[in-house]
């Protein structure tokens, strides 16, 4: 439909509104179309695959419709629930560590500081390092029993604390992964906070100072509330990212020791790419999707604007 078909009787305002709508659609469409083709479509196809026993490498035996068999198999698999528990644990640990640290550094780097750009670069270095390289480095740091971390622990405790098998001890494996992940990824949250801090009007601080607010009061009553939208974004996105934990686990522990670092995506990857059961893996992906969706919706509900 083109503008010419709109009856001339409609006033200028209506036409402007109409023009606006067309423009809006034109502005929204390119992004949505790309996402639809390259994200939504492939994802939808996994709903179909999840109902079959399709394989990674096509086989002479044609794929069979198995109904909800894959879901049944997953939901009765102890390992799946363990993987879910593990990502939940990971998320609860990594959220405060990573976001707290990122906010602290962002506040620091937002102040007047000599060589500030240099520091901004330095603190961002871990974030630009590829995960494969990060894992190689941290495997060395964590090495048991003589790696740098253990030497530092031994030195600080005057040799009282025995070397810790960071990645090999079921009690330490997840905290070790949390530490490494937070180190590699805090730059993401840091930079989002840094951007958020730019949006806080200077006048708010000035007003607070006139009211005699101290440093902490200004932080709690000006900075934190002003970062509200940023917090919401960081909370939801970090949670989703945490639930998708995969690469570092796949390289460093492959889910071990004793399954303590097996995650949902790792479970899915193993089913699909190692065991070659594409149907099963697609079913895991769908379950993962709905689990995280529920978590996100709950988060959105909890932090919603109460006006």
């Amino acid at each position: 439909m083109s503008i010419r078909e709109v009856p001339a009787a409609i006033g200028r305002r209506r036409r402007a509104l109409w023009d606006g709508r067309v423009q809006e659609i034109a502005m929204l469409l390119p992004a949505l179309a790309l996402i639809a083709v390259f994200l939504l479509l492939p994802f939808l196809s996994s709903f179909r695959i999840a109902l079959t026993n399709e394989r990674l490498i096509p086989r002479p035996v044609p794929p069979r419709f198995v109904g909800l068999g894959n879901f049944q198999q997953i939901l009765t698999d102890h390992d799946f629930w363990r993987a879910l528990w593990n990502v939940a644990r990971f998320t609860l640990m990594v959220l405060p560590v990573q976001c707290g640290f990122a906010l602290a550094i962002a506040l620091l780097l937002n102040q007047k500081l000599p060589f500030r750009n240099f520091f901004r670069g330095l603190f961002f270095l871990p974030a630009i390092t590829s995960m494969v390289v990060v894992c190689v480095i941290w495997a060395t740091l964590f090495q048991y029993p003589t790696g740098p971390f253990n030497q530092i622990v031994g030195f600080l405790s005057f040799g009282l604390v025995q070397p810790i098998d960071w990645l090999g001890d079921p009690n330490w494996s997840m905290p070790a992964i949390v530490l490494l992940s937070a180190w590699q990824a805090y730059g993401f949250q840091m930079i989002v906070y840094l951007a958020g801090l730019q949006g806080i009007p200077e006048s708010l601080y000035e007003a607070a100072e006139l009211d005699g607010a101290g440093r902490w009061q200004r932080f709690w009553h000006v900075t934190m509330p002003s970062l509200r939208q940023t917090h919401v974004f960081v909370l939801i996105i970090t949670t989703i990212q945490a639930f998708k934990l995969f690469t570092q686990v796949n390289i460093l522990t492959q889910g071990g020791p004793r399954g303590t670092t097996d995650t949902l995506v790792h479970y899915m990857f193993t089913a699909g790419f190692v065991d070659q059961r594409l149907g099963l893996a697609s079913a895991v992906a769908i379950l993962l999707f709905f689990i995280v969706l529920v978590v996100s919706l709950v988060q959105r509900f909890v932090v919603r604007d109460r006006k």
Partner: protein
Amino acid sequence: MKMRLSNRLLTVLRATTIVGAGFAGLSAAEAANLKLMFQGDPYEVKIITETAKKFEAANPGTTVELINTPHDAYNEKVGAAVSAGALPDIMELDAPFLANYVWSGFLQPIAPYIDKAVLDDMTASNISQGTYPVDKQLYATALVDSTVALYGSRKQLTELGIRIPTSVDDAWTKDEFVAALEKLAASGVKWPIDLFRAYGTKTEWITYAYEPVLVSMGCDVIDRTTWKAGGTLDGEKCVEAAKLLQSFVQKGWVVPQSAGGNQFYAEGRPAGLAWGGHWFYAEAKAQMGDDVVVMPLPKFGEKSASPNGTWIYAITKNASDPALAGKFLSFMLQDPEYRAAYREHAGFPGLKSFAADSPLYASGGAMAVAFEQASKSAVPRPPHPAYPTITLAFQQAMNNIFDGADAQEELSKAAKKIDADIEDNEGYAPFGQAN
């Protein structure tokens, strides 16, 4: 159809511009194009590129298109290529997956297309890794193969009065092996043996390196005639083998996974022996010099067993001109420079003439014993289309067993998983039907 033609034209066009003015006059229709999919480190890429160029020069009108795929996502790429009907003419593949690919109908027998000289030159181990058990035909070949040997320090072993075997025939027995580990432990060595758990918990290494222990003790991950895991993998002998390995870990004899794969030669030599692949020799030699001694894997039961298998070349059913593909493979495997490059990187010979040509593996060489295993004790991993599931189930079981789980329980679980997959694929007919 149209698109494929234009794609073809495009590739030919690209190839001709690369190869140069020499072929510029050729019309696209006459040019034969060979697509080769392979994986390799930079040295392999370099030598294969050069070999391909020489082949093109020797066979005017032929172009070889190299599709270099890092081995990380190789299977996924194969899967996608099959789905899209875009398999190359020649593809490199990991030997234990051969049966899966042949059964799936991607590959064709290569013997008719390969020079007889090359076929006759293949070692027994090389033939076994490329053979499909159903029709007993050869589907793949390669210049190289692989093995695992036992490494030690000559000085340390001599000091402790531990006998150093020099041939597969006088390999340590199980008791001798355990006694050696005990002696090493008693002498104050931190870890008597490195089994390279550092390679990871979901890695082919586990099946590759530890299955021979099972085979040597008279069992296997799957029965190779009935193709059933139940009753074999969870049988008495396998449980015994798994318990033996578990006991090493429980006694604190084995280098833990997070200690890294360098403990045999790192400062202070924390590990006494190393159960390492042939590629490990170069690493150890770089630090320890001639003190490294290479020994055959122990004979745990009635017979010796050692692993084999590496990345090998097959001709796909898609190949438009299989004879040309075979011609290229024959050319490559006999190319002196190709061989020299592999010799330089201590490639484990898969051809007898290449072994004679490699001082490291030839009689009197430091790795001669390791090469001897290829003809005397090499056992390929089960050539069965369910191999992806077999190896994953075995890996998971062995990890849990190393971590202290009950061997019988874990192996039963693995056997059930394997048999369930076979059933899920309607037995992978014709497997398990003959005999």
